[in-house]
């Protein structure tokens, strides 16, 4: 990630659209595909004369060769170094001199780069972004200081932070086979061992127009974007892409418990994770029902978990649930809880456990489903507010292999979720299923 930023791309649970009568549509994008296979997507928002220009590569940490963890992310940092025509640092200098803001991010599934600029600078951004798709120059003088930057980033994000350390360990227990088990930022010893050849091989393998998506949102139309996209991106030849491994996660056959005691922990935390279907993995028909379930359990102060454990029973001071299913691989459904200051972590954990058992036994109610559906559908309208959000949402979906129609019909699909469909999803994910339980505890004081 980014040079400044976000290693973990948030799955905005939002989705898109409006509860419009008739056929819902969220962003109403226009799209076409260049002759080299690169898809171009435009979403217009004319409030202010600015645009966000994003390029998404359909490659992320999960595509790294064995033993090369951290390669996708380290490489992303290096995309800001020089090309055949730009000196190291010049890319960012050009963006800044033109009043632009920029960043990049790496996830397990994709890697993205973006600039937000005044609309009259869009062409320049397209020119330099297209340039670094093929013309990057990497030397040892360039990659070595950046390797240290990445290791410092790892220390900041993970090694200096007990909950992040635990999360990293939990992923290795939850995913037995899928590369999601390996941290995006990489294991330190493997980051240290990555070579210039590794980096260049990764670049040559995956950074190609037929593995990229261009998404532009803001004060533009396809009419103006199309000729520019053809001029700058359309001339880059397509490349044969490596085969992707179709990773399948075997069933968890044992419950796993991961515990970290750390002197910096003041508040114990318990969490439990189940492997779940994703939007593209496993029993995908459950994905929307699981989003609704997560909203029912955790969508605010009157949601089931918070109301029951925090407001009524006082067994917890904080609790919630989450569903993430927007990668290429398996999804996760998780629960977490922290006890009150003088409370008992085991009692809090037992209370969440009882809620999971109750879900499996009794399911959800029609009123809960209806409230959750309307909240999720409203989030789709709010997603239109910022000129940046449409590019993020559409890019994130397309980069894992979903379609514009998937995004645009999301409110309708959410609207089609029923008590029965949620209850079927509950049975699929939780009933008689193994899980991974994580405990974060203070180091005993005596």
């Amino acid at each position: 990630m980014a040079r400044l930023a976000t290693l973990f791309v948030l799955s905005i649970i939002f989705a898109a659209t409006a509860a419009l009568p008739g056929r819902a549509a969220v962003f109403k994008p226009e799209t076409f595909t260049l002759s080299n296979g690169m898809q171009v997507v435009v979403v217009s928002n004319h409030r202010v004369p600015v645009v966000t220009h994003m390029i998404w590569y359909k490659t992320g940490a999960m595509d790294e060769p064995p033993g090369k963890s951290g390669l996708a992310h380290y490489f992303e940092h290096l995309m800001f170094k020089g090309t055949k025509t730009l000196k190291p640092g010049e890319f960012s200098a050009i963006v800044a001199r033109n009043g632009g803001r920029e960043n990049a991010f790496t996830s397990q599934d994709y890697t993205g780069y973006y600039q937000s600029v005044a609309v009259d600078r869009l062409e320049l951004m397209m020119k330099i972004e297209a340039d670094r798709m093929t013309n990057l120059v990497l030397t040892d003088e360039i990659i070595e200081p950046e390797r240290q930057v990445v290791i410092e980033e790892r220390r900041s994000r993970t090694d200096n932070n007990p909950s992040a350390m635990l999360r990293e360990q939990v992923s290795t227990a939850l995913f037995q086979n899928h590369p999601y088990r390996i941290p995006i930022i990489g294991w330190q010893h493997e980051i240290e061992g990555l070579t210039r050849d590794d980096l260049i091989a990764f670049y040559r393998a995956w950074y190609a127009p037929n593995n990229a998506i261009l998404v532009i949102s803001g004060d533009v139309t396809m009419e103006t974007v199309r000729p520019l996209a053809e001029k700058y991106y359309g001339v880059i030849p397509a490349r044969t892409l490596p085969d992707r491994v179709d990773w399948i996660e075997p069933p968890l056959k044992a419950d796993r418990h991961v515990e970290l005691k750390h002197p910096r922990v003041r508040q114990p935390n318990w969490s439990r994770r189940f492997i779940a279907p994703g939007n593209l993995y496993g029993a995908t028909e459950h994905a929307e029902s699981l989003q609704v379930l997560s909203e029912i359990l955790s969508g605010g102060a009157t949601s089931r978990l918070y109301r029951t454990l925090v407001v009524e029973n006082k067994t917890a001071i904080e609790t919630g649930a989450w569903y993430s299913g927007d990668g290429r691989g398996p999804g996760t459904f998780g629960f977490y809880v922290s006890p009150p200051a003088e409370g008992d972590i085991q009692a809090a954990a037992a209370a969440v456990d009882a809620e999971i058992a109750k879900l499996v036994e009794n399911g959800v109610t029609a009123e809960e489903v209806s409230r959750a559906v309307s909240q999720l559908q409203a989030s789709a309208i709010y997603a239109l507010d910022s000129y940046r959000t449409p590019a993020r949402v559409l890019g994130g979906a397309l980069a894992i292999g979903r379609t514009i129609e998937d995004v645009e019909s999301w409110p309708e699909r959410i609207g089609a979720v029923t008590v029965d469909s949620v209850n079927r999803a509950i049975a699929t994910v939780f009933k008689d299923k193994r899980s991974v339980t994580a405990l974060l505890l203070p180091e005993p004081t005596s």
Partner: protein
Amino acid sequence: MPKRIVCGVVLGLFWIVSAVTPASAVEVERVVSPGGIEAWLVRDHSVPITAIEFSFRGAGGAQDPAGKAGLAEMTSSVIDEGAGDLDSQAFQGKAEELSVHIKFDAGMETFRGSLKTLNRHRDDAVELLRLALTEPRFDPEPVDRIRQQIIVGLQQQSTNPDVIASRVWRRAVFADHPYGRPVSGTVDSIAGITVADMKDFVSSRFARDELVIGVVGDIAADELGPMLDGIFGALPKTSRAIAVAETAIGSSGETFVIEMDNPQSVVVFGQAGVGRDDPDYYAAYVMNYVLGGGGFASRLYREVREKRGLAYSVYSYLNPTRRGAVISGGVATRNDQVATSLSVIRDEWRRMYEDGPNAEELANAKTFLNGSYPLRLSSTGSIARMLVSMQYYDLGQDYIERRQEFINAVTLADVKRAAKRILAPEKMTVVVVGKPQGITPTSKAPEIKS
């Protein structure tokens, strides 16, 4: 709203700087309600959303009474936990049912509120906002729950190196002045805040004379007026003034070390800055951009990160508050490189103090600061916040148009003068949290309470 204690996701760092250009697409109207309440409005038809942002001046953490640190913040967390006939669950349930987002929070100098709603629920939404501001219930259950959440949050933060570094730094430079206290209070002070304290806070600080309002949405001035009266009309006309002593920022070159067994040290550094109304504000703003505010373009970034690989994050920023303005910065670097990182940062601080920027850096800073300004107008809420800030700092209704003039007027001599005036490399106060090698503290770090 309940405090979120558990946050499982790492957010990106955003450079605290900003940018600017004339955003001619945005037209600011001044609206005065029949009851005399003023708001600045930007009409926006692009989305079916209305955003209201407002701020009560002089109702922030700096004005919390002695021994009651955290009062403003705790009140901000409790007033949406039940109001009028609606208890906590009923109030929150109504907001959730309508997908209305109402938020309050306390800063050092202001108490802030915001409302975001779909237009079709606007009437119900503003009624919820009115209730929270004028008839909060303070029922025992939510008060106790929120208090516990704040306390647990404070305890968790008490071992967070970033929080410790920043608190010790503020304590060191502001000493016993309220600006040296955390807005969030301490475990002890939060435990001692009563419902009577919060009721007194609401009745004495939420008043029309200290209120500034920004609205963005598809609403006409003659519709907005009655809405403003509906929300804010019942508030008292004048607030009870709370005097806050002038600060004297004590930055005398001290280096403090707080030992913590982490692989990476967190460092905060800085000294007194300039306020928003200072004649040198724009010059200082440009100077900071070149020094460490400009993200990938800044000198600190280039020297510490790009050239030497010493850190992932290094930055400086201006915090131009009314009284306690500072220029501050931070770096996180491995323990055996703290001395090197700090030496590079001090060299840059000194180089800027002695020579200022060069002409090219000044020109580049201006094009960025002007060109990127419209990027801030990204949503209804962000535009409404800008309208509030323009009123809070008396920038004028045409500020969005005129900001470019202020930036362009800054000369090289201005920036050099500002650098000489603000930066005093030998007086920078430095706080290191970690196990730094080669750093000798000048004296014992001031104590902070969690």
